């Protein structure tokens, strides 16, 4: 039992940090441009596929740097030539634009790399067990993922809270016109933020690619969960996104490793149902409902705390 708790906690925190790498970019982009970037998970997928391709050509370490830069450049181009044009038609048009973009990116990835999973391996330098707890080998690559996400998290925090650039970005979040009057190029700030946000998602893609599955449906699977994180944490709240990422990471990881169901808890005390909807509910295990846990959480949060965990406004 203790073994399960320790391993699941490690995995859950890891998954949560990965989620936060993406959710942080999504949150900042949302606070700045007022648009939820539907295609954010697509940049995560692009990161994973670019990472895979560059790893095959030159190696993993260059890929870790080049792939996010490439994805970030694409993100900036999308902001400059796509979103900015659509902006005059309103927020709904922007949301729809990113929705279409997510669709197109998924198709393009399928055209180039096909539908089957890629053989994206953990680099040899990190392919060893980091430590052994309770006779389970914990892979070093997972510790590396944790390290990378923690470093980026700290760097982001310092840049946003302690540097001049962060100051301007924060000001542009709330008072874009005033920042513009002070002589800053707000359009360029938006473009850079969009680029950095998408690059962060791509970093998550590169490091998650070898550990999880690199496949053309990975964006479609992760995208909705990302939105859950952002809404549960509170739209536009960076600390909220952090808490929600860890929460959802832990909840999902623990749920997957648990096998209990109502039937197993109550055992022979349970009512004797015929084959009906209730039997399904009675017999379903926690592991089986793990995929819908985030959405359940979302609905509960929206009922009891519509502004999200740490959100300040009920937007």
């Amino acid at each position, binding site marked *: 039992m203790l073994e399960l708790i320790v391993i699941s906690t490690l995995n859950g925190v890891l998954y949560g940090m990965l989620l936060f790498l993406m959710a942080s970019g999504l949150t900042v982009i*949302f606070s700045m441009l007022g*648009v*939820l970037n539907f295609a954010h998970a697509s940049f995560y997928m692009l990161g994973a596929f670019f990472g895979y391709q560059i790893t095959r050509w030159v190696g993993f370490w260059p890929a870790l740097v080049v792939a996010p830069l490439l994805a970030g450049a694409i993100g900036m181009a999308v902001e400059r030539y*796509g979103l900015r*044009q*659509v902006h005059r*038609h309103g*927020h*709904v*048009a922007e*949301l*729809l*634009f990113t*929705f*279409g*973009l997510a*669709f*197109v990116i998924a*198709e*393009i990835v399928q*055209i*180039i790399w*096909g539908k089957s999973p890629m053989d994206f391996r953990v680099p040899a330098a990190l392919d060893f067990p980091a430590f052994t707890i309770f006779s389970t080998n914990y892979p070093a690559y997972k510790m590396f993922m944790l390290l990378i996400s923690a470093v980026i998290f700290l760097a982001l925090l310092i840049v946003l809270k302690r540097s001049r650039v962060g100051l301007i970005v924060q000001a542009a979040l709330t008072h874009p016109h005033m920042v513009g009057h002070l002589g800053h190029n707000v359009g360029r700030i938006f473009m850079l933020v969009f680029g950095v946000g998408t690059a962060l998602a791509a970093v998550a893609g590169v490091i998650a690619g070898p550990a999880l599955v690199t496949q053309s449906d990975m964006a*479609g699977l992760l995208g*909705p969960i990302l*939105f*859950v994180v*952002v*809404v549960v944490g509170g*739209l536009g709240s960076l600390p909220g996104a952090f808490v929600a990422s860890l929460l959802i990471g832990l909840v999902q990881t623990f749920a997957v490793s648990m096998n209990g169901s109502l039937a197993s808890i109550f055992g022979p005390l349970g009512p004797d149902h015929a*084959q*009906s*909807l209730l*039997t*399904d*509910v009675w017999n*379903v295990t926690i592991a*089986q*409902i793990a*995929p*819908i846990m985030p*959405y*359940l959480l*979302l*609905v509960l949060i*929206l*009922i009891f705390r*519509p502004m999200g965990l740490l959100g300040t406004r*009920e*937007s």
Partner: protein
Amino acid sequence: MSNATTTIAPPRSIGADRLRFYGMWAVAALILLLLPRLFSSSGSLTAFSLVGISIIFALSYNILFGQTGLLSFGHAVYYGMGAFLAVHSMNVIAGSKLPIPLPVVPLIGGFAGLMLAIVLGWVSTRRAGTVFAMISLGVGELIASSALILRSFFGGEAGVDANRTKLFKFFDLSFGPQIQIYYLIAAWLFIAAALMYGLTRTPFGRMCNAVRDNPERVQFVGYDPHVIRYLAFCFSGFFAGIAGALAAINFEIANSAYLGAAQSGVVLFATFIGGAGFFIGPILGAIVVTYLQLELSDLTSVWQLYFGLIFIGMVMFAPGGIAGLLMKHRPLLRAGTLGSVIPSYLVALIPTLAMVAGFVLAIEIIVRHTVMANESPIVNLFRVPFDTSKALTWIIAAVLLFGGYLVSRWTWMRMAHAWDRAASIARDKGYMA
């Protein structure tokens, strides 16, 4: 143009308006009746049935999106719930020989959608805008994923099937042949479309528009925007349920794909491409999108990419959709200046088509070199064979694409000038642009 009242077009007589209005519905009914006579092949009958279903679905979506300004990413949930309840009730009716004929089954589906909307709507519609979009996405995912867990109701991966011919006979109609199903769908399409149009003309429909445009003002007038959004949501769920039940009758099966994100995406595409601002928009969009789904998939293996690109193109350049584009021309048509822009249109069209052709050719070349690398390199584009392994084809594609882009930019600028001239004449004559 000092006063707004002077710029309004001269009013026409009420009688003529009324005649036009009922005439339009009569023509629509006539078209629905005559379509199978004009195109009687089984393929076109199937296509018409699918178009009919997706028109109802898209119109129901537009109650939310176009009328009330609620962008939903999970509308297929209500469609799917209608489909599942229709299938289950068909099985129950056939099993216990209840005197309920098939044409009533869509109503059951409609009430299934309505019930689900009543349950989920109050929480979902608390906020409009992005929050509503996210909630609808989350609820949609929740129910679509639950469908795979609750196997006894949703039938797991395989779904639940039914036999539509085993129901209580209604005027000796067996509902086996597709032509009878077509007329069933056509009848429901006419009823549902008329009801939904009527809904837009009621005070409630007007309040929906007001909530879309200015919810704060609505509160000052004394209405609760939340209640209005909730009611619109329920109506929308009801009609989506009807569409879903018709789909279930048409295919005699309901499975979890009916509820999924892909289905929600298609209805959003259809409504937006058609144009959410006009009642006719979703109808056009549903026709175009269903036609594209059926035809484009035969022509190219990457049709979904074109589909997405068309959608992005519409979002960027024509946010009013097809209906919006057409309606822009109405003042020019009334003022009689439409003829003066047609030459510029034709001039602009040629390089634009060249650019599109080059773009399509470029995509197909890439596809032949990646996905279909070991198949024949010949691609038939507009009945012209191109060998994608030859450099010449690549050059043609590049010339068409970039040359077309440069020339069409210039011609569209000319087009804009011609448009401005024609529009200002129309404005001077009193037709609002």
